[in-house]
């Protein structure tokens, strides 16, 4: 595992404690010896499809128990403690809803079963939070994918749970709705709730700007603060495109520099540089260009995104 925990302090109050947890289904190992703890605030669970994110979330929600190891949420075993269910809200990945109900009926039913004082009022508030009309009399069967997703989110927050588990919650939403819900999740995290959001879209995780757990092939590949991810981006091998008026001369100068492992010309006015120390490269490029008598037009990282970090983490 890539340890990014050095940058941020570990959460003072571990709401979720997962220790040496494995989960297998027959011969298929979905999660293998994963350990982590999560405190209040937003935590992103990041990984490609099939990495084990949904299985981890299902174990946190108590929908399934680990084959090995222990999962404690609020100090309880979520699979066995019925009362725990009133403290958790889950947005599951599957699309199915009770199709014959309206959104209001669906969310009100959740509030009723969760023993909320005024289920109707709570349902109205939750639907308004996610930008749906409580008065909409259409059945959810006729809803678009984005509307159905917001119904799922509304039923998960209707009882203002202490822990909110969201499995790919932004799927099917348009950019405006995404921004709205990201704000909502951040607001809930800032209120002291524990919000765990799974995603395979790195752009989403970047927007959450939160603590990140990276799962790959059922294992915890990395964990730490989002800022530590940013630092990792600087520490890993980088590819940078430099446009200049004298690319050949610049390439010669760059090759002599520390940390540059490869340089190749790219067209008539650019070089592509592979470096293992992006920070040092950024500091030295201006002087190197000056020494080579080259005028710089543009310095552009080609892999400065989380997707590249993720590939790097998984590869390592």
């Amino acid at each position, binding site marked *: 595992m890539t340890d990014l925990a050095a940058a941020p302090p570990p959460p003072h109050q571990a709401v979720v404690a997962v220790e040496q947890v494995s989960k297998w289904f027959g011969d298929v190992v979905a999660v293998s010896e994963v350990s982590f703890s999560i405190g209040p605030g937003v935590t992103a669970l990041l990984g490609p499809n099939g990495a084990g994110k949904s299985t981890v979330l299902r174990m946190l929600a108590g929908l399934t128990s680990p084959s090995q190891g222990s999962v404690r949420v609020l100090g309880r075993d979520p699979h066995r403690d*019925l009362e725990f269910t009133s403290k*958790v809200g889950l947005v*599951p990945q599957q699309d199915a*809803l009770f199709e*014959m109900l309206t959104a209001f009926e669906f969310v009100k*039913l959740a509030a*009723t*079963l969760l023993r909320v004082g005024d289920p109707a009022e709570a349902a109205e508030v939750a639907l308004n939070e996610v930008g749906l009309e409580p008065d909409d009399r259409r059945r959810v069967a006729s809803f678009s994918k984005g509307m159905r997703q917001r119904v799922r989110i509304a*039923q998960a927050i209707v009882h203002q749970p202490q822990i909110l588990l969201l499995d790919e919650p932004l799927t099917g939403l348009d950019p405006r709705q995404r921004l709205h819900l990201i704000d909502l999740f951040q607001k809930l995290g800032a209120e002291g709730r524990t919000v765990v959001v799974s995603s395979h879209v790195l752009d989403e995780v970047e927007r959450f700007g939160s603590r990140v757990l990276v799962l790959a092939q059922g294992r915890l590949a990395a964990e730490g603060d989002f800022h530590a991810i940013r630092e990792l981006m600087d520490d890993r091998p980088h590819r940078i495109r430099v446009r200049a008026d004298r690319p050949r001369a610049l390439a010669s100068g760059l090759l002599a520099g520390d940390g540059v492992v490869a340089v190749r010309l790219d067209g008539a006015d650019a070089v592509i540089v592979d470096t293992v120390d992006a920070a040092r490269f950024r500091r030295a490029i201006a002087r190197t260009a000056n020494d080579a008598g080259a005028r710089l037009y543009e310095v552009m990282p080609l892999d400065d995104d989380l997707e590249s970090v993720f590939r790097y983490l998984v590869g390592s």
Partner: protein
Amino acid sequence: MTASLYRLMLRSQLTRARVAGLLALGAVGIVTGLAIGSSEVVNHQLAGTRFIDTFGLALLAPVATLIFASAALGDPNEDGTLVYIWLRPVPRWRVVLAAIASSITVTLPIVVGPLLVAAAVTGAGADLVRATAVSASVAVVAYSAVFVALGLRVKRALMWGLLYVLIWEGFVAQANSSAARLAIRSYTRSLLSDIADVYLRLADVSFRAAWLVPLIAAIVAGGYATVRLTRQDVA
């Protein structure tokens, strides 16, 4: 809380296709009952009782109940909506109770209604109508609990349920009285036979056992479904 679940399950089970199909089957029973009533058979009571046994208790009651009861928790379990019931602080026995109660509510009028009319028009008399009401009701209650549990236990519960009804109850359990003891139909048939006062083959269970065993089967099935719901993984 249980009432909310009950209403939810009632609405999810009641689809037009299911109700229309089963009402059509019930209508076939009524037409057949009319045919018996208007025929010149010597003993309308015997003919009518045999008809209620072979059509009502062997086919309509178990199949109609299977269709609704196996869907009560089986459909949410398979399509993933069970999570919206399971992840709530609702005791599991209440969920199972709501499923069984909703299944009985839907099935009872669809099964017992047409069968009562069919029994009445056979011309067999009031005893057969009473016997039909009691035996079909007991059948619906027992099958509801058993098939709710089956829906939770296996995928394609409809197929497994049909195998039980048609192969086990309809064939294997007809071989001798020992095998018949392991079929709900034997007990409901005995109730029918006792109350209508008509001899039916393999209807030799005591009156008390004919009441108690289906009831015990329902309680055991409900208990099993509760344990299953408590322990199972939810998708």
